């Protein structure tokens, strides 16, 4: 009888541990989507770059090609599309591509991004995350960055309003009516970063309440040289840094409110 009980206990424990491990594997699977070898990403980015310039570009075929290589759609959005966009930008800088080709290529990447987003099952209950206003200034022609950031944040359960080609009047109006927890600007050019900084300084003057304002963009370090960015709370491409900043601000405000109540 003792032996039987021991055997049963062992089976029960084995099942428990097995369940635990596979439950952990399933959880890991959800965020371990990046292929192990970064060269795969480069290879996929190169493929996407070539197909974005093809006269016969079709978003579903471009997606199928990458999926067949083992890429998950989230990896394509987070890594492959940005690599392809960088290659397009480099093409113009190196004069191997005209700006018209760059525009068409970027536009095709945008179509692919939209195609992936529309086919993705999206939870409509976005009550747990933060509420962000994602903007690109009216002088910014490249909106791909803002849309990728939007896709990433939405996947993490944040609720967003994406306002492209905007100006300080519109940002002030949106912020005054909806009280977003943070505003994020995306920039990709030397001209727009200056105009965006100017716009944010005006927004700061106009708005009564203080709101965290962030700046990001894939080539932000290069284009921001010599520009006064002190009006931004953070200049970063790290979404976790942005989320941490907003969460900590919320905690501080809660603590202050609690302190005021006690007094």
């Amino acid at each position, binding site marked *: 009888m003792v032996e*039987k*009980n021991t*055997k*049963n*206990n062992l*089976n*029960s424990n084995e*099942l*428990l541990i*097995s*369940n*635990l*491990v*596979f*439950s*952990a*594997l*399933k*959880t*890991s*699977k959800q*965020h*371990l*989507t*990046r*292929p*192990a070898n970064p060269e795969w990403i480069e290879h996929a980015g190169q493929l996407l770059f070539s197909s974005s310039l093809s006269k016969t570009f079709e978003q579903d075929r471009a997606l199928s090609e990458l999926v067949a290589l*083992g890429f*998950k759609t989230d990896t394509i959005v987070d890594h492959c599309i940005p690599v392809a966009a960088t290659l397009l930008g480099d093409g*113009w*800088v190196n*004069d*191997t591509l*005209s*700006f*018209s080709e760059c*525009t068409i290529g970027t*536009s095709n990447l*945008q179509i692919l991004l*939209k195609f992936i987003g529309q086919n993705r099952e999206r939870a*409509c*209950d*976005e009550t747990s995350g933060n509420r962000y206003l994602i903007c690109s200034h009216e002088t910014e*022609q490249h*909106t791909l960055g803002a*849309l990728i950031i939007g896709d990433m944040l939405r996947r993490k359960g944040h609720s967003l*309003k*994406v*306002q*492209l*080609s905007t100006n300080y009047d519109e940002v002030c109006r949106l912020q005054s009516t909806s009280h977003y927890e943070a505003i994020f600007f995306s920039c990709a*050019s*030397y*001209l727009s970063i200056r105009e965006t900084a100017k716009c944010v300084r005006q927004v700061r003057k106009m708005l009564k309440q203080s709101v965290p304002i962030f700046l990001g963009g894939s080539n932000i370090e290069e*284009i921001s040289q010599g520009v006064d960015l002190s009006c931004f709370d953070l200049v970063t491409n790290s979404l976790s840094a942005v989320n941490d900043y907003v969460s900590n601000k919320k905690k501080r405000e809660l603590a202050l409110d609690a302190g005021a109540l006690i007094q």
Partner: protein
Amino acid sequence: MKTNSDTLLEFGSIPVIEPEYLGGVLATSSDIALLVDTNIEINSLLLNKSEKSYGNLNHWIGRKLTDFLTTESIPKLLSAITKLESGETVLYGLELNHVDNAQWQFPIRYNIHRLGNDGKIILLGRDLQTVSENQQKFVKAQIAVEQSIEEKRELDAHFKILLSKTTDSLALINAGSGEVMFSNPTFQETFFRDGDDLENISLQSLLSNRAERKGFIEKITIAAHGNYDVSEELNTNKGEIIFSINPDIYRAAGQQILICKFFPKTIRKKGEQELIDNLLSTFHNSPDAIIFTDIKGTIQYTNERLLDLTNSSHKNDVVSKNLSEFLGRGEIDLAIMLENVLKSGAVKTYSTHLKSSFGTKIDIEASVSRNTSDDNGLIAFIVREVLSTSGSSRSNSSQTTTKNKDEITAKELVGSATLKEIVTDTTDVIEKICIEAALEITNNNRAAAADLLGLSRQSLYVKLSKLEI
């Protein structure tokens, strides 16, 4: 004319052009021609006479060309000049954006050539303003499309929330074909099971009586126009139930759409009351413990058998308590069963221990299902004491099925990350699950949780911080 691969025109293959004609050739073969020296200073500038839009650019002469370029164009020019200075030929066109007093910009596509050994360089440019204007229009149109997609997304979110928060079964139906275009979760839970394909479902296909399917949509449409309800027996995932269908009709995008609300009628079908009586009798007399909990595991109802198994004297000792308090591995057991039942609807067999109020443990097998007929979404546990190994074959078969599914998960994961990454991440997740469970068990008493986990307090704090618990 002869050409070679580098310079296109071989020396001597064209006649020498006299200086008084050269200017004219350059001015007409390009929209703008610039002569610059080794310091990139503009020595001379020629504009095509037909090109009026640039105005007077004479103030460029004597100034550096880089003063009239946008920031991103400067490295491109410098790179091309470096190539020329090293003796290379720049065969590609150089797209540069000019800027003048920050008032306006214009893009030019230049061909750049060395004129001799004195370092002089000539840039022959073609105006890209028309292309640029078209590109601007294209970008503006694209941004407008993107913005309208964002607005549509916002409306979609409102629409989905509205549907999901409507507690009545609701469906939007194409009045021409009967196709269900949109439906809310209540409708889907009433008429379909998890995993059912909801594409191309028609309202008439839900009718129990096949003979009435023809003409059914017309009947509903007439009722919508006449503003009255229709009673019909429909196939639900719990059998045939009579519904009162409340239709309304509207037009959108040229289509006629029926918006129908479905209210189940309380008339019990023959035999249904008998079934309820039998179920109640089974609940009270079952040799197995039957427990209903909410989705957090708080016991709502149980039969007497659970009191026997846990040596509890009164139902009040178990009702409103969390089932994990009676399970051998507490929160861990409960979390695994709840996770599986919420994902797949049922857990066939799960082996663990049950703790009695005296601290003794008995081996049990539990089967779990979700009671979807109840709006509160209660979870039903049937708990059986394991007295011998007779049940092990069933348990093994269940384990085999789970194993097969898990192997598929593992196969999907392998290849998408290195083994080291999978192991590190999985270990982190396991540590997190166990620490969270230990904290739950100990009511967030960190010292007790550390003891339970066999960790020093310091180690636990380090892990809490690392795992962001």
